[in-house]
């Protein structure tokens, strides 16, 4: 009997692959497949009218822009946080480390209410800012603040293990070969972190695009100005317009998926570049 030559070293491929397919289908594919199924109950003209309504267009723009800005802010500050947590030891480090996960654990509605209270014109932060004419709550800025809050853990948690793996000796070697601090950072540290960094950015972005609970409280929900796409979906559902709701959802899904694909592409490109 001729055994397959390409037999894998680890046993259980059939079982785990089967489980993977089953699990992905059950948790992701089947629920997502019902989306287009629901949308298909409407005519093409109705679908087009729904997804190109000026209010809906304004909401896409707001949702995607605010999510991108929030993910970018998180990428920047998340790097600093991860760096500090890995590279330096200081009293209370474990507590700070545990704090990072809080936005994961907190019900998003609570986060929304807390942020709104804080940034409302009579809030602790909102009142002093209002004196300088900066309005946060009930503006796109407030939405971004909420999205920064809920997206914060992603960048930190994806960067931490990579920074841990990044041997300080590599930086020392670079320095001893005459690289300045900026050169070490830009030519040694950043390229090594880039793939994980992009992953963190993508995760934070994906989370922000779909966020509803925390945003509705701080956004003010004004049509054309501070209405996010998930709110419009809920609005449609409230009118028993399932097809309309899934139409908007499908568009968001396509937008998010293509953006995530782009980021993934960037990521594998940067990974190939720094392969060593």
């Amino acid at each position, binding site marked *: 009997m001729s055994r397959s030559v390409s037999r894998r070293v680890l046993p259980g491929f059939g079982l785990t692959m089967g489980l993977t397919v089953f699990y992905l289908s059950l948790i992701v594919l089947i629920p997502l497949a019902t989306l287009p199924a629901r949308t298909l109950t409407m005519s093409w003209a109705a679908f087009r009218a729904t997804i190109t309504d000026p209010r809906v267009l304004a909401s896409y723009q707001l949702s995607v822009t605010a999510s991108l800005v929030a993910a970018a802010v998180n990428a920047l500050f998340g790097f600093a946080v991860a760096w500090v947590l890995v590279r330096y030891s200081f009293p209370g480090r474990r507590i700070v480390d545990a704090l990072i996960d809080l936005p*994961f654990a907190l019900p998003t509605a609570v986060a929304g209410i807390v942020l709104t209270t804080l940034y409302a*014109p*009579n809030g602790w932060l909102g009142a002093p800012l209002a004196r300088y004419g900066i309005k946060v709550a009930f503006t796109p800025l407030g939405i971004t603040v909420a999205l920064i809050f809920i997206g914060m853990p992603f960048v930190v948690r994806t960067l931490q293990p990579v920074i841990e793996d990044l041997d300080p000796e590599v930086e020392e070697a670079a320095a001893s070969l005459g690289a300045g601090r900026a050169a070490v950072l830009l030519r040694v540290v950043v390229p090594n972190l880039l793939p994980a960094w992009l992953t963190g950015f993508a995760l934070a972005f994906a989370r922000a695009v779909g966020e509803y609970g925390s945003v*509705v409280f701080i956004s003010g929900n004004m049509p*054309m100005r501070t209405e996010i796409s998930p709110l419009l979906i*809920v609005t449609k*559902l*409230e*009118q*028993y317009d399932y097809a309309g709701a899934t139409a908007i959802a499908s568009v968001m899904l396509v937008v998010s998926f293509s953006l995530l694909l782009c980021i993934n592409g960037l990521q594998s490109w940067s990974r190939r570049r720094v392969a060593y």
Partner: protein
Amino acid sequence: MRNIIRGIAFGIALTAMAGAVAAQTLLNVSYDPTRELYQDFNAAFVKYWKAKTGQTIQIRQSHGGSGGQARAVIDGLDADVITLALAYDVDAVAQAGLTAAAWQKRLPNNSAPYTSTIVFLVRKGNPKGIKDWGDLAKPGLQIITPNPKTSGGARWNYLAAWGYALRQPGGTEATARQFVADIYRKVPVLDSGARGATMTFVSRQIGDVLLAWENEAYLALGESPGQLEIVVPSISILAEPPVAIVDKVVDRKGTRAVAEAYLQYLYSPEGQEIAAKRHYRPRDEKVAARFSNAFAKVKLFTIDEAFGGWQKAQKTHFVDGGVFDQIYRPGTR
């Protein structure tokens, strides 16, 4: 992810519970502000039912936005009775085939055992001098009301304002539209629900006047004593939050008798008194007379008189592209 697991576990627990005690439980699916009302009422009904039949029953409550609750029932939540904010939502349940199309005729008073109306909540001392709907047109005012597309209560607010404008001398559809558009231009924050709007007004101190359910206004008044005042306009809408049995569910679970008794008990003097104590206007004249000091006299018009019923009002004002959406269409500001 954690949320999903918790949700599934909760769902399984709930299903198991429902199965184990199906015979003697009743599920009342209601809207947000009735929480306190039905807590009191359920306790009273359990006692009444025990005395009458010797059976011990357990009543579970579920609260949320009226539209969302109706959707949950349509999607399979095992509600024996629904007690929602507006007839439109019960109609949706009926259209899904879960209850009779003529549900509104099965109980007295349009199936609304208690009523409410829309009043104004203002800051202590009424600094902006708001006495009636007409004062809402004053320049520089900020008005708080939730989004009528997502909140049942907000739809009553909107229709009350429209009905007032229509009843003014020279009032036409056009002037009403102008008046309502004027109000929404003064709304700085459109919350998604009535509770959210109350919080915006009371805790965040935003706005000069809140349009609110009468019962919700009294609740807010009780929670922040000395800071707020209720202003009752000269005329307002008669809000009739309807109740109905979900035929498909009670027939399957065999709970029709107790579910019917439950709704009928809402009309009894005891039920009416509990409603009145929770600031819902009772239908029973004797109970109403006893609580006459608790409710300001106000001229009330019904949705059927002014708008030809919920289906029509919804279609004209709140569907996508309806009058409400037109207010916010770009270029009209």
